[in-house]
């Protein structure tokens, strides 16, 4: 069932600040709507020989939620972000080194994981680590009626019949990472894919604006 009524398709307002922390090599704080995430990258470091990788850099991701107790959900988010960034970073330029990416959740009003992926990407841009392409994460939900809602809020996400997360690369908008929750039909999936791909253009444009702001000062 193709969703008849089109929800208004716009992304939550994006606000970002680069180089927020003085001690890390690259850092960014990003707010998507009310969800706020802080990410910090410590660029090619020398790490102990046991965890070194001969031909590419080892990426270590740490996701800290606000409450202290580490949970399985954090491990799942770390895994998603690590796999996504591993394809984006040109590991072969920094063999036998380590890159640590730390992500701190500040506010969670829905869409935490997509905000974390985008913030990690901005922090990597700020750190000057060589990247094959930039990634943009978009999520959408299928509510009870069956319509596609882009960037669901916390309540919409809980009551949704299905949640779809996509991460696209900036080269030719291929799918880097994608995972879903709940059941949905094939054409809803096609529709969501096309919609989110369009939405990812906004995010890439946002990245360009952020870099443009401080380009004249370089």
């Amino acid at each position, binding site marked *: 069932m193709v969703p008849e009524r089109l929800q208004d398709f716009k992304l939550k307002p994006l606000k970002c600040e680069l180089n927020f922390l003085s001690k890390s090599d690259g850092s960014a704080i990003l707010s998507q709507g009310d969800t706020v995430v802080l990410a910090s990258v410590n660029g090619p470091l020398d790490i102990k020989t046991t965890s070194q990788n001969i031909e590419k850099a080892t990426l270590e991701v740490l996701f800290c939620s606000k409450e202290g107790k580490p949970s*399985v959900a954090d*491990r*799942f988010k770390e*895994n*998603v972000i*690590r*796999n*996504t960034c*591993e*394809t984006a970073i040109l590991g072969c330029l920094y063999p036998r080194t380590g890159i640590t990416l730390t992500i701190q959740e500040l506010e969670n009003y829905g869409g935490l994981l997509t905000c974390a992926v985008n913030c990690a990407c901005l922090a990597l841009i700020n750190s000057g680590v060589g990247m094959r392409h930039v990634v943009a994460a978009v999520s959408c939900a299928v509510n009870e009626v069956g319509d596609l809602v882009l960037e669901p809020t916390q309540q919409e996400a809980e009551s949704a019949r299905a949640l779809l997360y996509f991460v696209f*690369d900036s*080269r*030719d908008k*291929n*799918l*880097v*990472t*994608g*995972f*879903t*929750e*709940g*059941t*949905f*039909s*094939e054409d809803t*999936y*096609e529709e969501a*894919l096309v919609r989110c791909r369009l939405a990812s253009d906004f995010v890439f444009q946002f990245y360009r604006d952020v870099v443009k702001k401080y380009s004249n000062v370089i």
Partner: protein
Amino acid sequence: MAEIFKHIYPSKYFNDYISRNVRPDGRKFDEHRDVKVNINAITSADASAAVKCGNSTVVCGIKLELAKPKAEEPDTGFLISNVELLPLCSSKFRPGPPSDHAQVINNIVSDIVMNSKCIDLKDLCLVHDKLAWVVYCDLVCLDYDGSIVDACIVAIMTSLKTLLLPSVSFDAETEEVKVDTSARLPLKIHGLPVATSFGIYEHIPRNIVLADPSAYEEEMCGGVGANLIVCWNKGLFCGIQKFGGSNLSTEDEKRTLVLAKEISKLVEGVIETCIKNDKVK
């Protein structure tokens, strides 16, 4: 000779095969390995199934227990699935606590079972806020030869379909529970989710999608955990998971979803026939 060449220069060995549109074990890109399913192999478990997809072997055993439901959800039972990647199934896994790859697989399998809503946890509740079934599904991987999530889902679904719950009588005052294991009634299952994994190999003109990758092919397509997993449940998708690995273009994605539909129909057929001839016997 080929074995030594494969160890010394694995990517070139694989590339030679792929450029000739064939895979090291002779299959085409969209062919999947044969699936063997066997029911009630383990008598000490309440229900069990052994599944072999090509060389990947998974045994699932279900044990039942009674427990008091959680205060927050007084009328839901518990379905706890646990995937164990043993050190004996592949040299990649070490003894000791489960590796983070095992936790990811565990996460994916329990997500798929929950997302597909094939089991309604409310059916597991016997007495409101007093007594409910706890279904422990322990999946044990005996041989890790790639796309282990498919074998796990087939194993857990087959054993759940053949599970018979003993009838329980409980009278409120004396809080006394009588379990008679003779009269058993099956658990209601809605739909039958089936998962199919695909490896995406980085290739110069266009990335190539390999159905049902073996351990070696998984290694070549971006390491462990970089598979695209598509789960299909009676006409609806109940999960499409892809974590990193090489990128997937739109037309490949469409073709993959169609392929996934066919493969899951075949696997559903295998499970149905296996259960049917078990009843005939």
